[in-house]
């Protein structure tokens, strides 16, 4: 697992128009220099917001990738919750989920 590298890719994607263009044109090639694991790479390529969240990516980085993928806010929040249901608790970082799996939170 290389959470730092996964986070760094998303951080750079969020702020670099050239990387966005290259990622849209050829996502696998754009990911290549970041040295991600297969699980991490597949999560990005399939826009698996739930898994990226469980892997520990900071939500302040992840929410922009979700918007980049065309996922609206409430759907973004639900995909993270679904990710915890499917893959288990967040594995690293400080953006863990503290409410219960089926709790309804008012901000969604």
């Amino acid at each position, binding site marked *: 697992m290389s959470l*730092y590298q996964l986070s760094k890719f998303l*951080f750079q994607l*969020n702020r670099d128009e050239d990387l966005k263009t290259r990622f849209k044109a050829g996502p696998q090639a754009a990911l290549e220099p970041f040295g991600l694991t297969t699980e991490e790479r597949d999560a990005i390529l399939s826009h698996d917001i739930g898994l990226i969240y469980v892997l520990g990516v*900071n*939500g302040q980085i992840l929410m*922009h990738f979700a918007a*980049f993928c065309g996922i609206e806010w409430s759907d973004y929040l639900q995909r993270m919750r679904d990710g915890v249901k499917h893959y288990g608790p967040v594995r690293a970082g*400080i953006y863990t*989920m503290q409410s219960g799996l089926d709790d309804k939170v*008012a901000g969604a």
Partner: protein
Amino acid sequence: MALVFCGVCSHAPGITGRAERADPDLREPFYAALGGMRDGLHATRPDALVVVAAEHFANFFMNNMPAYALGMADSYDGPIEDPAWLGIRPRTVRGNPDLSRRLIAEVQQTVDVAYAEEWRFDHGIMVPLHFLDPNNVLTVIPGNINCQGPPLSPLRRAWAFGEAIRRAADLVPERIALVCTGGISHWPATPDSGMINEAWDRQFLDRWARQDKAGMVSYTDQATYCDAGQGGFEIRTFVAAAAAARGPGTVHFYAPIPIFAVGCTVGTLEIV
């Protein structure tokens, strides 16, 4: 010349980006309070506005994370986010590198602040500017406290940073306004987004308004994380504002607005 204005406010991206989804009975008084803060700020005729924010990986990342930073650029562009997502049009904000250099030099007497000649504003600064400087007329100097990538600087050092900004503002001939912006309790961008610990917020704001330094810096990051979420780390900005102003604070507005993911806050402090 002096610090002429000191205030705090929230900066959550939902405040502009998800405005239409908020209860108007909460949203409009909040916007009105920000309008009052804008009027108060401009009435002090500041030569520059220092905005101390808690940015979210727009400029600073874990490859080289400064605990404290101040901008030293001619100008600053924002928002770095998709303008449609944030609901704020792009703008170029005027800086003042000469003033930045003088402020930074004085701050460095007591705080080893990093400086940055490149800085793109994220919602942490753009949301406040959207309300406080809608016509983009102010000269702005951005500041940052790392509240995102632990380990984080202790709260007592955030206090020292505020003290240093005050000392620097008082030494330069310009009139300096200071706005520090962050959330109190919140769980932003997580599945818990919208959770707000109102009791915790009100206790913190009470300590803040009374200049209770010991109370304000007593929170451990572990306790804050449990009670107030990862967003609670941003109280560092409020602590810095209290240290800079030295006088009592007034909370002009506080209300949890879940779709904005934070207890929305507007406050000012007396400068003494």
